[in-house]
């Protein structure tokens, strides 16, 4: 470890005081009954502010973010996170609002939410949007619950199966399972699209929904989408859009126009809010009008009668609440700020350049790596080291060697249907110079694979730790610090 655990730096009795002394006179103070009182002291560290600040500053230096360098993590849309977004969310007028304040004191916030809903509906081609889900997978959960509620409202309770392609994100089947559904997986065709014959075979009276990403996780636009929608709708089922790959199509095509009934959108991908080292995200869900009554409670909307924005809780068909309060509002503020700065034209330009960057980088890498699916790709693409297989070098080795060259590796070994996949999503905010340099590094790595494969097997070389023993970590889990004397 390059930095000791904070607990081992603790010195008994060291402290900072952040509060003024208690100003309630002693005679008026109370004490807790014995059964309610804590007997031991939690072993939190005892440090000065400087100790703490240095510790976490050093930890930050062991990390790599979009601000550190190129982060072409496929399906994650690691675009630049503009700084104005952070400052907007920190404005006291947004950050210091209590969720139960009377709505007349939060009209600006509710307006921001209503306008974000409207903008997202327009971008996705949907009729109504909820901002409540806290992340993409949470949006999926909300969406599938709404689909189930819709079927149930029609007395159609036989629909218990959710179809997912074998190239889908793992969250899709996991979500359907969480909703009590049975999962039916269908294969992809040789072009990476949905196998229509396989779909026709499984779509029927027991199908609740098909969950699909478009562009797919291979970065390819599913051009049979209208036919897929027809098959699904004819079977009486609904079509769910996993919006993880929305960054490819803004202003070019809309899931709503493709026949999707429900869409989730990842604000932390397409709308430039930061990933935070794993969260918080935000996963708004858009629906067609016939599903609007099922949206989670409450719904933010403008009430003409009162001339103000309200939080509408009286919704008898709603699936209920999917979390406390109204969603990750702070993240929504950041996305709203991004939408304001970008405008409609800016968003379309972002998608255009995201696709341009992906195709350009794919062209460059096609010289040294195997490209399993010919272009044009959309915002991301797959390459594999299949062409240098004889060197004994695997995708993992290539990814780890990229770290030595100062890059965050792409998504690896996903989608599962491509052997040894490197899934690369450059995003629109990266320059030609960055893409060129990245391609040169990968080219050099392919030569190293032939000349000195050991260099790759042992990579990375320049990091505080190298490859970790994950098997040992899982076999005998050490998940917390304990004092050595225990």
């Amino acid at each position, binding site marked *: 470890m390059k930095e000791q655990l904070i607990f081992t730096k603790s010195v008994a009795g*060291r402290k*900072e005081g*952040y509060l003024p002394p*208690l100003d309630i006179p002693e005679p*008026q103070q109370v004490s807790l009954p014995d059964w309610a*009182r*804590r007997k*031991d002291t*939690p072993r*939190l560290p005892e*440090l000065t*502010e400087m100790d*703490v*600040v240095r510790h*976490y500053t050093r*930890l*930050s*230096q062991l990390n790599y973010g979009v601000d550190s360098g190129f982060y072409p993590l496929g399906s994650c849309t690691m675009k630049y*996170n503009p700084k*104005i977004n952070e400052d907007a969310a920190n404005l006291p*007028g947004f*950050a210091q609002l*209590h969720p*139960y304040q009377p709505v007349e*004191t939060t009209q*600006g916030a509710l307006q921001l939410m209503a306008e974000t809903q409207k903008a997202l509906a327009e971008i996705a081609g949907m009729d109504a949007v909820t901002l409540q889900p806290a*992340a993409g997978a949470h949006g*999926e959960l909300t969406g599938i619950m709404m689909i189930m509620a819709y079927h149930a409202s029609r007395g159609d309770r036989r629909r218990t199966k959710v179809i997912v392609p074998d190239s889908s994100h*793992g969250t899709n089947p996991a*979500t359907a399972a*969480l909703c009590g559904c049975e999962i039916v997986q269908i294969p992809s065709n040789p072009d990476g699209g949905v196998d229509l014959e396989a779909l026709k075979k499984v779509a029927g009276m027991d199908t609740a929904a098909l969950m699909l990403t478009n562009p797919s996780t291979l970065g*390819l636009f599913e051009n049979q989408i209208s036919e897929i929608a027809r098959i699904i709708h004819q079977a009486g089922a609904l079509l769910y859009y996993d919006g993880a790959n929305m960054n490819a199509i*803004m202003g*070019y095509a809309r899931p709503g126009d493709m026949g999707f009934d429900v869409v989730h959108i990842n604000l932390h991908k397409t709308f430039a809010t930061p*990933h935070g080292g*794993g*969260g918080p995200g935000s*996963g708004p869900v858009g629906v067609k009008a016939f599903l609007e009554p099922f949206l*989670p409670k409450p719904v933010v909307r403008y009430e003409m009668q009162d001339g103000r924005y309200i939080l509408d809780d009286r919704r008898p068909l709603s699936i209920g*609440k*999917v*979390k406390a309060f*109204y969603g990750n509002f702070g993240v929504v503020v950041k996305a709203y700020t991004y939408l304001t*700065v970008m*405008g*409609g034209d800016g968003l379309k330009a972002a998608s255009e350049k995201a696709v341009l960057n992906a*195709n350009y980088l794919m062209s460059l890498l096609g010289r040294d790596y195997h490209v399993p699916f010919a*272009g044009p790709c959309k915002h991301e693409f797959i390459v594999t080291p299949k062409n240098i297989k004889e060197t004994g070098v695997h995708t993992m080795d290539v990814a780890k060697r990229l770290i030595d060259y100062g890059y*965050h*590796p792409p998504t690896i070994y996903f989608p599962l249907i491509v052997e040894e996949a490197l899934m690369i999503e450059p995003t629109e905010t990266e320059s*030609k110079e960055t893409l060129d340099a990245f391609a040169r590094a990968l080219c050099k790595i392919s030569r190293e694979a032939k000349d000195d494969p050991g260099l790759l097997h*042992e990579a990375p070389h320049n990091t505080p730790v190298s*490859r*970790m023993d994950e098997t040992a*970590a899982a076999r005998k*889990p*050490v*998940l*917390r*610090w304990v004092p050595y004397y225990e």
Partner: protein
Amino acid sequence: MAYLPHTKEQEKAMLATIGVSSSEELFRDIPPELRLARPLALSPGLSEKTAWEQIGALAEKNRHTGRLISFLGAGAYEHYQPKAVKHILARSEFYTAYTPYQPEISQGTLQAVFEYQTMICELTGMDAANASLYDGATALAEAALMAAEATRRKVILVSPLLHPEYRQTLETYLHGRGIRIAEIPWEKGVTQPAEAEKLLNHEVAGVLLQNPNFLGSIEELAPFAQAAHKAGALLVVSVDPVSLGLLADPGQCGADIVVGEGQSMGLPLSLGGPYLGFMGVKEKYLRRMPGRIVGKTTDRLGREGFVLTLQAREQHIRREKASSNICSNEALCALSATVYLALLGPQGLREVGNQCLQKGHYAKKCLSTLPGVTVPFGCPSFTEFVVKTQEAPVLLNQRLLSGGILGGLDLGRFYPELKNHILLCVTEMRSKEEIDQLVRIWGEKA
């Protein structure tokens, strides 16, 4: 502004490399009938300066707790956040990183999560904690699902004094899974263990409580633990972590799973999110826990470090057999809580807890002296408490608001039987003077 780097010449060169004449050609795979034939109906883009002015104006339309004296709690709490927290969170190596899939360049996030997991264990008395969940409500729902899976039983006993929105979320999550929810009767401000005992049988997977409960009262957990365990059920407790410097930890009282809302650890109110769901469990349930978990291990040269571990529970490996569908969590909020706890230390956390306790009781006592105001429950409370008024809560709160005070929550909104009852919250943020001011304005007309 659009954060786009290419010059026209560069773009031309890139298109030539690809072998197309325009970027339009790269969209040729989208069937023409699916192409959006018009521009998006959105406002045009703005300069940063103009955008900043517009957004600032929108923020100004709100009346925020920095300018009001707030006595609102009910699941979202105003506590003092040391200034250093925000400075650490602003380190963009933390906030612009993704989930730490590549441990070699993610030791910062991974170690911080390991420290966070340790702190959650220390506070709750549990053996292991995960790296975070969305919020307190979904953490509770995930815990209920875990209890049902672990016991293979289909009934969950719930205290009605759990946050109403948490119970609603629980209902939503359990609906599709065929798990039934039954309520334990409450009386005098607390849930009744004797009533829980009557309801417990071989079908009950878990007993779910909140401490302090939604009315601010402190629940005695041990009798619930004994009753639950006797029937083979789990005790799940949702706690306010800031209370745990002072209040008995649920682990010591016999809880099997402890969840809660971490927002109280100095996170901004932010109209209800992003917040921080946390979960700690007894070792026995470790491998059923949802979400990311960080573990310590060594690299190939024997150096110690951290990785995401036990991933065989997770959706990206197990797909439909995963313990949950969660992927993104609330990592940055967890970092915020970690830095908060590190700055406060054990004494600081106890001090915050004690100030909440004392100020809450002082306010309760002062308000009870007003004509028409009574304190309906005599049980010990923490930072929140209930009073009954003769004046309609809506009118009272309007009166307070015109005096610059954000009054408490009208409990009639969630509990029809508690019409004219108000839930007030007094944390360390409120001075005695501000409490006196509340009492003065409240008493002016009532």
